[in-house]
C-alpha cells in the first residue's frame, strides 16, 4: 500500500522534436511516509506533482494509490499546497477554508470542520479576516487548512514555504511536522532547499535536471525532532550538497 510512482515519462511536444521533462521517474512512498524531492528549478519536480494529482497526464507510466490508478483530481485521495497560497481575495479566512470542502456536508458539519481546521493551523480569531490583511505565513496556513479539510490520504507540497522569510519558514516546517505526526498523512514535498528536505523527509530524493531523473535516494536516518545544528545533520547536508556541486579541491598549502 502507499503511493506508487511507476516509470513516469513526460514529454512536451515542440516545433521540431519534443522536450523530455521527466524520464523514468520511479518511486514508492509508503503510507504515512514523508518524502522530500529536491532538485534545481526546471528539473520537472512541479510537473511530477501535477501528474500525481491528476492535473497533467504522463506520456508514459502510471500513478497508483493503494492499488488504484489516479488520472484525474480526486479530493479524498490527494491534496496539494502550492507555493502561492492561492486564496480567493474576496473570501475571508473562514470561507477560503470552507472552499476546500468538496464533499456534501450539512451546514453544521461544515461549520464544525472549518472551526477545527482553523484551530489546527493556529488561526483562531482570524476567521473573518481577508487574505490581503494576512502575512505570507498566515496565508499559507489558510491554504494548508484548505488542503487538509478533505482529509486526503496524500498531501503534496510544491515549494510551500519558498516565498517565506527564513524564520517564518522554520516555524511553518515545525507546524507541518506536527500536523504530519498527528494526522498520519503521506506527505511528498518538492523543494530546492537542502536543509528543508533533510529536516522534513524520511528520505530525500535527489533529481537531476534536463531531463528530470531520480539521481539518488538518500534515507535520512535521524531521530525526530531533528536538530539542524547537529553534526549528523551536517553529514546529510554535505551528502546532498555533493550531489549537486563538485567539491572544490583546495591545494594543501592554503589550508591551515
Amino acid at each position, binding site marked *: 500500500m502507499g503511493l506508487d510512482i511507476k516509470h513516469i515519462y513526460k514529454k512536451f511536444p515542440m516545433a521540431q522534436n519534443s522536450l523530455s521533462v521527466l524520464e523514468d521517474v520511479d518511486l514508492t512512498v509508503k503510507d504515512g511516509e514523508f518524502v522530500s524531492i529536491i532538485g534545481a528549478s526546471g528539473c520537472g519536480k512541479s510537473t511530477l506533482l501535477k501528474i500525481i494529482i491528476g492535473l497533467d497526464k504522463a506520456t508514459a507510466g502510471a500513478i497508483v494509490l493503494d492499488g488504484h490508478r489516479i488520472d484525474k*483530481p480526486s479530493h479524498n485521495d490527494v491534496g496539494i499546497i502550492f507555493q502561492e497560497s492561492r486564496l*480567493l481575495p474576496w473570501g475571508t479566512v473562514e470561507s477560503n477554508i470552507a*472552499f476546500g470542502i468538496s464533499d456534501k456536508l450539512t451546514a453544521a458539519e461544515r461549520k464544525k470542520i472549518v472551526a477545527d481546521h482553523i484551530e489546527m493551523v493556529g488561526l483562531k480569531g482570524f476567521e473573518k479576516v481577508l487574505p490581503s490583511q494576512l502575512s505570507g505565513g498566515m496565508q499559507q496556513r489558510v491554504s494548508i487548512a484548505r488542503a487538509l479539510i478533505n482529509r486526503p490520504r496524500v498531501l503534496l507540497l510544491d515549494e510551500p514555504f519558498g516565498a517565506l522569510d527564513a524564520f517564518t519558514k522554520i516555524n511553518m516546517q515545525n507546524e507541518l511536522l506536527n500536523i504530519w505526526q498527528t494526522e498520519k498523512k503521506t506527505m511528498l514535498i518538492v523543494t530546492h532547499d537542502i536543509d528543508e528536505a533533510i529536516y522534513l523527509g524520511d528520505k530525500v530524493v535527489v533529481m537531476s535536471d534536463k531531463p528530470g531523473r531520480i539521481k539518488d535516494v538518500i534515507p535520512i536516518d535521524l531521530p525526530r525532532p531533528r536538530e539542524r545544528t547537529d553534526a549528523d545533520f551536517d553529514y546529510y547536508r554535505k551528502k546532498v550538497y555533493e550531489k549537486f556541486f563538485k567539491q572544490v579541491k583546495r591545494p594543501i598549502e592554503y589550508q591551515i
Partner: protein
Amino acid sequence: MERLEKLLAKKEFGKNNGIFLPLVLPVLLVVIWKSGCDANLINTSLLPSPDHVITALVTMLGDGSLKKHIIMSTTRVFEGYAVGVILGLLLGILAGLFKPVYQLLSSLIGMFRPIPAIAMIPFLILWFGIDETPKIIVIAIGSFWPVLLNTIQGIKSADTKLLELARVLEKNQLVVLIRIILPAALPSIFTGMRLGISHAWACVVAAEMIASAVGVGFLISYARELLQPDVLFVGVASIGLIGWAIDIVMLRLQKWVLYWHVSEETTK
C-alpha cells in the same frame, strides 16, 4: 517658509484639505466671473452674471420646471442604462466564457463600437418616431458598449492559478463561475458600469436636444432659441452636477461591493 512647512506637516491641515482644496478653483472662478461682469468686461447678454443665474435657478426651482426636466431625464437614463447594462453583462459573460461566441461577435463589435450612439439618433427616430423609445435605445446603446467590453475583459482576467485550484478541489463549472470568475471580473465590470452611466447621461442630453419636449437637453436647446442665457446656464450646470453626483454614488457602491479590492480609485 518654516511656518508653512509646519502648517503642512500638521495633521489637521491634511485632514481639512480634502474638502478645502477642491473648493478653491470653483470659488476663484465665480469671483473672477462676477468681477468681470461688474467691470463690464463680460457681455452679460451672452454670459449672464452669477446673481442672474441664481435668480433664474430660484425661479425654476420655485415653479417646479427644473425638477420636471431633471426627473424626466434621469428616468430616461435609468431605463436605458438598465437595458444597456443587462445586455452588456449577459453578452459579455457569454463572450468572455465561450471563445466561439466572442469570435462570432468580434466583427460586429469591431464595426459598431466606433459609431457614437448619438449618430444612431436619426435612424432611431426614423424607425421609432419621436416618442420615448428612440431615446431609451440611444441611452441603452451608449451604456452597452463599455459594459460589454469591460465584462469580456474582466471574465478573461480570471487567475489561471485559482482555476487550477478549483480543478484540484473538483468544483463544478457553476461554482467556478460564481466563486472565482465573476468575483474576479467585478472590478472590471464596475469600470464598465461607471463609464456606461456617464455615456448614458451624455446620450440623454443629446437625444433630448434633437427631439423632445421635456428634459434637461430640451431645456438648454429651448433656452438657446429663446435667448435666455441664464436658463441655459442653469441647465448646463445641472447636467454637470448630476453627472458628478451619479459618479460619486457609483464610486461609493463600488467601494462597498468590491470590499476586498484595493485600487487607487476606491481608496480616494
